[in-house]
Structures are given as structure tokens and as C-alpha cells.
């Protein structure tokens, strides 16, 4: 039988510079990671928490709709352009870390429901778009500048 024990560490720097640190495995036990204290919070990360392809993957982090989680959104302009470092830690049977993987994301928004706050992120590497680096429109591509909003790529 295979056993998996995963602890996730959520480190968010909002666009206004406020820092939030939470982990979701050790209930009511603050943990230290890279010299910083992570309090327990019952959150869940959904989506691709590790990606080697840089294909602008999306991750959703779900928190209960309680006061501290509302701050995650309100402190950072609706979770826009916040920076998330999500660390996944594999634990051994003694609950000591055996392997760690870290991924970074950029906030793209949030939504509320009665019970849940959903924070949405995309991978920081190429958050400007899936075709990073973005294409540049030149006169050679566009042709004569149009008089209306219709661009025709040639």
C-alpha cells in the first residue's frame, strides 16, 4: 500500500504588500518554513500545483468564507496581481518533510460564495498570456493604420 502525506504552504504577498502565510496539514500547529511562521488554515489548492511546461496553468485556492480569508482578497485589490508561492511538502510517516516543491503564481481574481472564497491564480512565469512573449503589432503586420477598430493581420 502506498501512502501520501502532503502539506501545502500558502504564502501570499498582496498587491499592497501585505503578507499572509498559512499551511493546511498541521491542525492548530504553526509551522516554520524558510524561517517564517505558517499558521493553520483549512484551505485547499485545486488545479496544477506543479508545472514544468510553463503553459500558464491555473490554480484555485479555496478558503472558508471567514474574516481572515476575506482579508486575503480585500487587502490585495480583489486578489489582482498578488504573488502566491505555493509550497508542496511530502511528509514521511513521522510527519517530517522528505521532499519539497515550490511553485509561484500571480493572482487574477477571486469570487465569493456563501461558504467559500475562491482565489484564482495563474503561473507567474507567463501570466501575460499563453503566447509569451506576446506578439507585437507592427505597421508591416497591420498595414495602413485603420480608421476604425478593425485590425486585419496580413
Amino acid at each position, binding site marked *: 500500500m502506498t*501512502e*501520501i502525506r502532503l502539506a501545502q504552504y500558502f504564502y501570499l504577498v498582496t498587491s499592497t504588500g501585505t503578507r499572509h502565510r498559512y499551511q493546511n496539514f498541521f*491542525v492548530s500547529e504553526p509551522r516554520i518554513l524558510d524561517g517564517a511562521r505558517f499558521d493553520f488554515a483549512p484551505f485547499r489548492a485545486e488545479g496544477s500545483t506543479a508545472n514544468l511546461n510553463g503553459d500558464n496553468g491555473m490554480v484555485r485556492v479555496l478558503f472558508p468564507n471567514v474574516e481572515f480569508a476575506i482579508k486575503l482578497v480585500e487587502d490585495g485589490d480583489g486578489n489582482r496581481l498578488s504573488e502566491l508561492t505555493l509550497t508542496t511538502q511530502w511528509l514521511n510517516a513521522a510527519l517530517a518533510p522528505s521532499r519539497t516543491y515550490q511553485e509561484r503564481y500571480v493572482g487574477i481574481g477571486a469570487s465569493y460564495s456563501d461558504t467559500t472564497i475562491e482565489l484564482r491564480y495563474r503561473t507567474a512565469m507567463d501570466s501575460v498570456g499563453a503566447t509569451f512573449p506576446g506578439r507585437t503589432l507592427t505597421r508591416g503586420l497591420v498595414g495602413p493604420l485603420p480608421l476604425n477598430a478593425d485590425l486585419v493581420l496580413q
Partner: protein
Amino acid sequence: MANFPSIKPTARSFQLGQYPVKTYRAMSGAVVRRSFGNKAFGYTLDLQFENVPEATVNTIIDHYNGQQGGTIGFAIATAVFTGYTVTLQGKVRNPSGIEWLYAEPPSVSSVIKGISTVTVKLVGEMR
């Protein structure tokens, strides 16, 4: 948070909590178990207070209403665990990081005038 009333039950049943583990089974039948946390949850404690006077019934009902039913957690008085050693009480009465809640409304059945039997079902959940 008001403690559960200090009343000795006539019957008591306790079940340990379970750990947050999810099991995935491959088509081969092999099993992978993923652990989501390091604490147990969902302890249950069933108490019965047989042939108690109306005052005791009122005390339990008042406590139930004071905790807004299963909304506000509480601790349990040692009298409820009469008969257990201190060591066992520590594991049963105050499991680490657990608070008790009403799992369902207490039920009261009348025996004779002024005497009733009350059944209380509690659940221990993470704070």
C-alpha cells in the same frame, strides 16, 4: 462557551475520531491512501440520563439553547466521565484540539410525572 452541565449519566458511549484519509484504488486493485491532516475529527459521545427530575431536563435544554444547538462548541465537565481514570479522561474528555458540539437535539421521553429520560448525542470536531 458554557461547559456541558455537571451531571452523571446513567449510560455513556464514546467513539474515537477518525483521521482525514482518502483512499484511491487503481484498476489493478492497488490502494493509495492520502492523508490530509495530522488530527482526528468526528469523535462521538452518546449520553443517557435515565429517570432524572424535571430540573435536570431543564438544565440540559437550557444548555442546548445556550449553545445555539450545534453551533457553539463547549467543554464537558469531569462528572460526565465519572469512573474513568484521569489518563483516560484526558483522552476522552479533551482530545487534542477538539471541542464538543450537539450532533442532534437532545431527546426527552417521559417516564412518570416529573421524571424523564434524556438522550444527548455529541460530536467532537476540530476547533
